[in-house]
């Protein structure tokens, strides 16, 4: 659809081929890009399940007539509809009536929201020194302006506290970076953003970073996780059916914020996750990256680092190996390993640094090329050629040291792209790995900017003002 509209803008009539199951998404993209009447040529059914003769019959009998129609029948230019301003009151009613209205307009995630009144929104704005109309970016696929104002509105709705506002703004700044590819968050893998939080603000605002760290239940972790999904829905336009742009085939629920155990990581003599990404250990930093799945609860036992690494390579490596095919094609892969404080302490006691852990994972996690080729075809790649990717410098030479289809190649693309966060139950030897979605949702970090009167504002809040 994007290419078709680029062609139309260049003065060339165009028609995208879209499979039946993607028509709603295609139309929503066209609408968001300013061409709601774009002609779309439907290919019937699920192409990856069709035999060759069946495919050619669909092309000749259905697709080609649709293409001809799309390129010959005139279509009208649409007129842009008027939309409310930021402070316009769009609805008045009781809590139940507001809830029903927001559900009908698809402005909620299916749960009731806190009504975003002007008073509540302004209470959030007090916790940032930034102007409400500051534009943080344009969020695709819906191509809408992300502003400090609508960050506050959605923060109110999600059940956040006003003092979370600096974190919410930093999160939106992160997802608005073009490299984050938010526009692809509605792709079929159904990836979900994962927020990682570092710095003194973890304790200051009462985030959970111990037992049940990824469970809903603590207000800070939960409401901010909900905020991001709500924001992506309302401002980026990533809504599931009916009628919108999120085509995550099965997808996932939102992630709560993953806060690092700052005391534990400092006690090991390790840098925290934010410092690994170029910040100081004592800075408040938010990182957002995609996650398409996670390992089973990854128990590792023993008194030595090597014994723990054996299990981490096995479970984290094998889990990530099912996505190496697409990571190798894109040349990016940023999985994240959450290590429990007790396991991290054994690794550190044996003298392992985080770089040692990353290097060991990279060198020991392996997958066969035969498996990658099958998985690549299954997901829909028409070709998968590691030799070509190596020749183009997309991946290292280790991926093509011979033409043996049963050879083993690395699971990970680069060791330095494996994230490590120390968090979770301090009383259990359980870890967890998150599989990231290649160049869609790579980690993006932003410093959290607090207002000059932050301490006074917090004190005010604690006194219940």
């Amino acid at each position, binding site marked *: 659809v994007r290419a078709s509209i680029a062609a139309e803008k260049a*003065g060339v009539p165009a028609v995208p081929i879209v499979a039946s199951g993607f028509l709603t998404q295609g139309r929503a993209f066209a609408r968001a890009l300013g061409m709601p009447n774009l002609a779309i040529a439907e290919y019937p059914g699920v192409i990856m399940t069709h035999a060759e003769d069946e495919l050619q019959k669909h*092309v000749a009998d259905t697709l080609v007539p649709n293409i001809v129609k799309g390129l010959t029948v005139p279509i009208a230019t649409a007129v842009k509809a008027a939309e409310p301003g930021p402070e316009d009151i769009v609805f008045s009613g009781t809590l139940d009536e507001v809830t029903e209205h927001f559900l009908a307009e698809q402005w909620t995630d299916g749960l009731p929201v806190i009504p975003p009144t002007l008073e509540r929104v302004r209470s959030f704005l007090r916790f940032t020194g930034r102007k409400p109309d500051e534009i943080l970016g344009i969020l695709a696929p819906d191509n809408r302006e992300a502003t400090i104002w609508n960050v506050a509105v959605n923060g109110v709705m999600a059940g956040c506290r006003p003092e979370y506002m600096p974190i919410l703004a930093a999160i939106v700044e992160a997802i608005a970076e073009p490299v984050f590819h938010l526009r692809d968050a509605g792709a079929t893998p159904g990836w979900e953003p994962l927020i990682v939080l570092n710095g003194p603000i973890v304790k200051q605002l009462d985030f959970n970073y111990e037992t049940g760290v990824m469970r809903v239940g603590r207000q800070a972790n939960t409401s901010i996780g909900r905020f991001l999904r709500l924001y992506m829905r309302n401002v980026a336009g990533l809504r599931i059916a009916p009628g919108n742009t999120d085509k995550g085939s099965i997808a996932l629920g939102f992630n709560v914020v993953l806060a690092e155990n700052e005391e534990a990581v400092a006690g090991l003599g390790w840098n925290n996750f934010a410092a690994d990404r170029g910040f100081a250990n004592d800075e408040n930093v938010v990182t957002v990256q995609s996650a398409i799945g996670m390992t089973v609860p990854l128990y590792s036992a023993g008194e030595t680092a090597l014994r723990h690494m054996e299990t981490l390579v096995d479970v984290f490596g094998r889990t990530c190996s099912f996505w190496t095919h697409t990571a190798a094609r894109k040349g990016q892969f940023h999985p994240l390993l959450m290590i429990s404080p007790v396991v991290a302490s054994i690794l550190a006691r044996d003298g392992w640094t985080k770089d040692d852990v990353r290097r060991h994972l990279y060198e020991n996690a392996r997958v066969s090329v035969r498996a990658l080729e099958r998985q690549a075809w299954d997901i829909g790649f028409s070709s998968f050629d590691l030799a070509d990717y190596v020749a183009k410098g997309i991946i290292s030479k280790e991926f093509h040291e011979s033409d043996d289809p049963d050879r083993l190649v690395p699971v990970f693309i680069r060791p330095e792209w494996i994230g490590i966060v120390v968090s979770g139950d301090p009383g259990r030897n359980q870890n967890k790995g998150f599989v990231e979605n290649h160049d869609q949702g790579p980690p993006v970090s932003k410093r959290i900017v607090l207002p000059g009167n932050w301490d006074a504002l917090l004190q005010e809040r604690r006194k219940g003002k």
Partner: protein
Amino acid sequence: MGEQNYDVVWPLGRSASDMVTTQSRVADFRKARVALLFHVGFRDKEVRAGVEAALAGLYPGVEFVDRAVLGDIHGRDEAAVIAALPAKLREYGIDAAICGMGC
């Protein structure tokens, strides 16, 4: 005593998209040069071959310009390929474009 009423604001943001002016459609495919704007995926080779054969059968004289010239519209260089598209379409005298695959 009645329930409290809430006056609420809009949770979306201003649209940054302008409406796109639609173009005149193809008058005669027999004289048309058609761009096949594809990416590597979802059996694009088989679909492209089928589309080319069917259109050539229906409209003798139709010409095609493909990905090898115009680039991969959903590859690693997608942004650059899309940005270069207007100039490429002009350079090759393209009359219509077929884009795929949306799967």
